[in-house]
C-alpha cells in the first residue's frame, strides 16, 4: 500500500503540493488527473524518492521513505518501476541494455538469464526482437513501450506511469492503455498513472483522484468521477474553457 500524508513541496515562490493526502491500495490502479503543471509528476517523483518534500510523509508498504538514506532508498526503488513521459531511454545504450539496465546494475545474472529476462519483458510489451536497435531508431510509441519494458524487467511491485499516452497517436494511445491494463492483470502490481487524457484515465483506472492547487480535491471510481457535481472536476473532465479553474486564473491575472 502507498500512503501519502500532508505532502508539501514548493519551487521558489510556487507551492506545487500543499498538504496532499492520498492512499492507494495494493494491487489497484490509481489515476491522478489534473491540468499540466499542477504537480502530478512532482508527486510521482516524491513516491520514488527523487524529490524530498518540505513537509509530509510517504509510506511504501508501511515504510516511511522521505527520511531514508540514499542506500536505503535504493532498496525501496527496486520495488518501483517508473515510466517517464518521454521514455527517458539512455540513448547511448541499445534497447536490450536499456531494458536490462536495472538487472545489470544490481543482480548477478548470467548473460543467458539476462537475455531471457530482457526478451520476456520486451514480449510483454509486444516488441520482440528489437533488442539490438538504438533508442534513436524507435518511434515515439515504441519508446514508451521500451520504457515500460525497462520498468517491468526488475519485476517491481509498483509501477508509476507519467503521462503514458501523451504525444502518441490515438491508436497507439489505446494500445498503451490496453498494455497497462494487461500488465496490471498479469503482474498484479499496484499502478499509479498520471495523465490529463480522460479517455485513458477511464480506461485504466480503478480509482481516479483529481489534483488541484496542490491537493487531492476529488476521489472516486471512473463512474463516480464522470457523474460528479464538483464544479472544478466537472470543468476539467469535460474540457470546458469556462469554469472555476479558469476563473481562478483570471483572478490572478
Amino acid at each position, binding site marked *: 500500500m502507498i500512503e501519502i500524508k500532508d505532502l508539501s513541496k514548493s519551487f521558489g515562490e510556487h507551492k506545487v503540493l500543499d498538504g496532499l493526502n492520498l492512499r492507494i491500495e495494493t494491487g489497484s490502479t490509481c489515476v491522478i488527473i489534473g491540468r499540466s503543471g499542477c504537480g502530478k509528476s512532482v508527486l510521482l517523483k516524491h513516491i520514488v524518492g527523487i524529490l524530498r518534500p518540505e513537509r509530509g510523509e510517504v509510506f511504501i508498504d508501511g515504510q516511511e521513505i522521505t527520511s531514508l538514506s540514499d542506500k536505503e532508498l535504493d*532498496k525501496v*526503488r527496486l520495488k518501483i*518501476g517508473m515510466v*517517464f513521459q518521454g521514455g527517458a531511454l*539512455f*540513448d547511448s545504450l541499445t534497447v536490450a541494455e536499456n531494458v536490462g539496465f536495472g538487472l545489470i546494475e544490481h543482480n548477478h545474472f548470467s548473460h543467458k538469464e539476462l537475455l531471457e529476462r530482457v526478451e520476456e519483458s520486451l514480449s510483454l510489451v509486444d516488441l520482440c526482437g528489437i533488442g539490438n536497435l538504438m533508442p534513436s531508431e524507435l518511434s515515439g510509441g515504441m519508446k514508451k513501450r521500451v520504457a515500460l519494458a*525497462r520498468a517491468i524487467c*526488475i519485476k517491481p511491485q509498483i509501477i508509476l506511469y507519467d503521462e503514458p499516452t501523451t504525444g502518441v497517436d490515438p491508436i497507439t494511445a489505446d494500445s498503451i492503455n490496453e498494455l497497462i491494463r494487461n500488465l496490471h492483470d498479469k503482474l498484479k502490481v499496484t499502478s499509479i498513472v498520471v495523465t490529463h487524457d480522460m479517455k485513458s484515465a477511464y480506461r485504466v483506472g480503478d480509482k481516479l483522484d483529481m489534483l488541484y492547487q496542490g491537493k487531492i480535491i476529488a476521489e472516486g471510481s471512473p463512474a463516480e468521477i464522470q457523474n460528479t457535481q464538483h464544479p472544478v472536476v466537472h470543468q476539467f473532465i469535460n474540457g470546458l474553457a469556462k469554469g472555476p479553474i479558469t476563473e481562478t486564473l483570471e483572478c490572478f491575472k
Partner: protein
Amino acid sequence: MRDLFINLGQKFLAFLYFFGGLGSLVAQTFRWTFIPPLKKERVFEQAKKAGYDSLPIVSLIALFIGVIMALQTAYQMQRLGSEMYIASIVALSMVRELGPVITALVVAGRVGAAIAAEIGTMQVTEQVDALQTLAANPVKYLVVPRLLALSLMLPVLTLYSNIIGILGGYLICVYKLGIASSMYLQITFDSLLFKDLFTGLLKALFFGMIIAFVSCYEGFNVEGGAEGVGKATTRAVVTTFILIIAADCIFTAFFYFIFP
C-alpha cells in the same frame, strides 16, 4: 548606483553558489569512487573518448606550438648568437608549462564541452531521474568514470604532447636553423630534470579533475531545453578555461617559490 550593487551582490551570490555546488559534487564523487563496484569498462570507454580520440588534435596543436616556440626563441637567440639555448627553452617550456596547459585547454574544449552537453541532455530528457529510479546513483554512474578517465588520460596526453612539441622544435632547429640533430637531443635531455616532468604531469592530473568536475556540474545544472544545454556547455568551457589558467598560475608560483 543601487542597481550596480544589487548586480554585484547577485554575481557574488552566484559565485558562492557555484563553488558550493561544485564542492558538494567533488565530495560526493570522491566518496562514490571508493564504494564498490567500480565498472572498469565504463572508465575505459571514457578514457578512449577523452584520450585516444583526442590524439589527432593534440598532435596537431602540440606540433604547431613546438614550431612556434622554436621560431620565436630563434628570433631572440639569433640576436644574441645563442641558438644552442633554443632546444632547452623549447623543452622546458613544453614540459613545465605549455604541454600541460595547451593539452588541458584542447581537452576542455573537445571533451569537457561534450560531457556538459551529454549530461545536460540527459538531465532535460529525465535520463538522470531514470538512473535514480533504477537505483543507479548518477554521480557513481556518470561522474566517477569521467573523473578517473580524465585524471588518467590528461597526464598521458600531456606526456605525448611534450614529445610532439619537442619534435616541432627539433624540425625547425635541425632542418631550418642547421643545428646538429644529436646536439639538439643532447641539450634537450640535459636541460630536463625529473622535477620538471613531474610538476608538468601533476598539473595535468589536476587539470583533468577540473575539466571532469566543472563539465559534469554544469551538465547536472541544466535548466530548460536545448537552449539550457547550449548555455551550460558554453559555461562549462569558459569556466574550465579560467580555472585551468588560474590553477596553473598557482601551481607555477608554488613550484617556483616552494620547490625552486
